[in-house]
């Protein structure tokens, strides 16, 4: 999949109450992101922080023109509908902040996104952030510095810890993408690798997350697609008890029938896949800056 991607400028927020809307828009405005409308059913015609409120996405577009991205904050059972409304209004980038979406709603949304060439981030994402430029969602800008290392992370605070180490080594970030850690995600490492390999502000990419199937996928993609930017990974959770695995159908059935837990070791599989793809894995956050320095020196 190849995505046309540019940083969104004109953003709306869907499915939000007024208090939260005020909080989000103020925080986003502070880091330079323009929220051009808020969509809140029954509150059309009002204003929040000087931003117009509409009942429908299409009304907002008719009034204020084209929109690049939407942030969806609706309650879990209303997210699918809100996303469909955005897609029907030709919005190409949908960020779902709400966590806990029923998986079949996400499956349905994925199918729609694929057909319409829509990029979905989340569910349960805190959004994306370009330090000192753009804050789309709820990532905390105070932890990040501007630079040329891209972070793609399934954990918000995992990204923070990595950024803090990078900042100490004077290596800022070109973009921080929080994928979320729901069972079914609109976009994963793979989509963002394909986007960021074209990003001229990004020199190297760090994949951050708890070991799961998505890293295996990313590793395979990294080998197939020609990404001529260094990619490294940091996996957290190799020592913690495993709490959930998102498995394939046959394994689910086999586990279920034999009444035993599968012996599939997701950690080992993710590590092996990354190794095979030549993606170095940092053992701890403080290893990331020297690892990147070595790789970047080798390259240039």
């Amino acid at each position: 999949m190849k995505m046309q991607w540019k940083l969104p400028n004109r953003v709306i927020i869907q499915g939000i109450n007024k208090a939260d809307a005020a909080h989000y828009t103020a925080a986003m405005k502070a880091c330079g992101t323009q929220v051009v409308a808020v969509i809140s059913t029954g509150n059309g015609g009002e204003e929040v922080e000087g931003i117009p409120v509409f009942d429908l996405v299409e009304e907002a577009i008719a009034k204020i023109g084209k929109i690049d991205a939407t942030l969806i904050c609706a309650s879990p059972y209303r997210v699918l509908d809100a996303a469909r409304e955005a897609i029907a209004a030709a919005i190409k980038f949908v960020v779902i902040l709400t966590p806990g979406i029923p998986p079949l709603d996400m499956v349905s949304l994925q199918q729609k996104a694929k057909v319409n060439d829509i990029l979905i981030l989340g569910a349960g994402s805190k959004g994306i952030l370009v330090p000192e430029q753009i804050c789309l969602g709820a990532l905390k800008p105070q932890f990040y510095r501007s630079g040329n290392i891209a972070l793609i992370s399934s954990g918000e605070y995992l990204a923070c810890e990595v950024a803090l180490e990078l900042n100490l080594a004077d290596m800022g970030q070109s973009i921080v993408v929080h994928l979320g850690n729901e069972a079914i995600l609109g976009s994963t490492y793979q989509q963002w690798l394909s986007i960021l390999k074209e990003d001229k502000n990004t020199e190297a990419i760090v994949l951050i997350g708890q070991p799961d199937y998505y890293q295996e996928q990313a590793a395979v993609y990294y080998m197939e697609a020609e990404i001529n930017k260094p990619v490294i990974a940091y996996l957290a959770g190799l020592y913690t008890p495993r709490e959930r695995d998102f498995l394939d159908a046959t394994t689910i059935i086999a586990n279920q029938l034999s009444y035993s837990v599968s012996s599939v070791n997701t950690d080992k599989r993710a590590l092996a896949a990354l190794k095979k793809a030549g993606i170095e894995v940092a053992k701890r956050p403080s290893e990331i800056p020297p690892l990147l320095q070595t790789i970047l020196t080798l390259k240039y």
Partner: protein
Amino acid sequence: MDLLEYQAKELFRQVGIPTLPFQTIYTPRELKRLQIPYPVVLKSQVRVGGRGKAGGIRFVANTIDAIAAARNIFNLSILGEYPEVVLAEARYDAEQEFFLAIVLDYQLQSPVLLGSVQGGMNVDSLLDNLQQVVVDGEFSSFYARRLTVKMGLSGDLIQSVSTVIEKMYRLFQAKDLDLIEINPLGVSAQGELMALDGKITANELALARHLDIIALTTKDNHLSPQEKAATQIDLSPTIETEQWLDWQDRKGKIAIICNSRDLAVITWDLLCQGKGKPACCVLIDDSRYSCEDAFVSLQEQLAKVLQEIDQRAEIKVVLVNILAEEKVNFTIAQTIIELYQLGEKQIDTTTGEERNLVANGAKSRSHRQVNNQSNSRPKQIPSVKIVMRLLEREIDSLPEDIPENLLYWTDNLEEAVQKAISFGKSR
């Protein structure tokens, strides 16, 4: 949530998947009023598997046998689970037994249809013959037919089995299921189909919008009103509260306090890598830090957590790792320092005069603490040592001179982890 067999079968009936006549039995005596003609099968209604081999399924030919068998089943635990209900069902002579299932494949991010012509209890041959079809778009009957052909079916069975799969899919989609399974699907000599056993797992996230499933799983199963209330889905917004993670190591020495699961994971990893011994991990909730009462909540959460940690004698060190707004950091630092001094106050042996001095301010309080420590009265040394990782390097209004061997404060995670490990090793 796993449904019991009879609950799954009620859903099967709703969409027209053929099931045998059945009756639910709560006490063996109810068998005297059984509506189903003998011979019948009595089946223990438990969620765990392997009930057939464990003796949870009995064939009976008359009421006397049935009552005796039912008594047995009610008293038979299957992997620790006793049935509350026994299902009485007509017998069925199947010539063949198939396996059918639909699950959500998380890696493909699509529902998958599965089928095997070797259904029943022999798992190995079932899996050897397992076929699958990925539903990678909007469902249509051809996906079901594709599966039946892959399974090797022919003639009328293609359509009849496909129809059962379609109905299963309808339930899967409409009720937000993680899994729906018929095993076995009995096939009679005449080619008639019958769902002889079934399993349904409903997705927890979607449960609140399926009131019928909630009703089905809570109705007339002899729960007390309190138990019923406990099974109600709570839709009210949750108040913030601490959450103990399910990670426990009784041999561990270090308790971890974080404000997110990410930080818990990373801290636990780093401790293990450094050969430290984490014991347990608790998350405190600071998500509503912008609200006015949030600080009280943080204080309460911390007090409760530290008290619980205090009761575990094996814990030597508390490692606090928080990434938050400045005011949250401040509240946490202040609360921990105060709590820790409170603990000392309870065994305060100072004179009234000294107490008056203490009342002059926090700084003099902590001075006193240093003095007490140098007097080496062991009772006054807190039972745990604290390592605090907060991004603020200093917070003005807090005492500066707390001895480093009681409370170590840094803004660097890996340094904090090292310190916690060395504290854990020292006596």
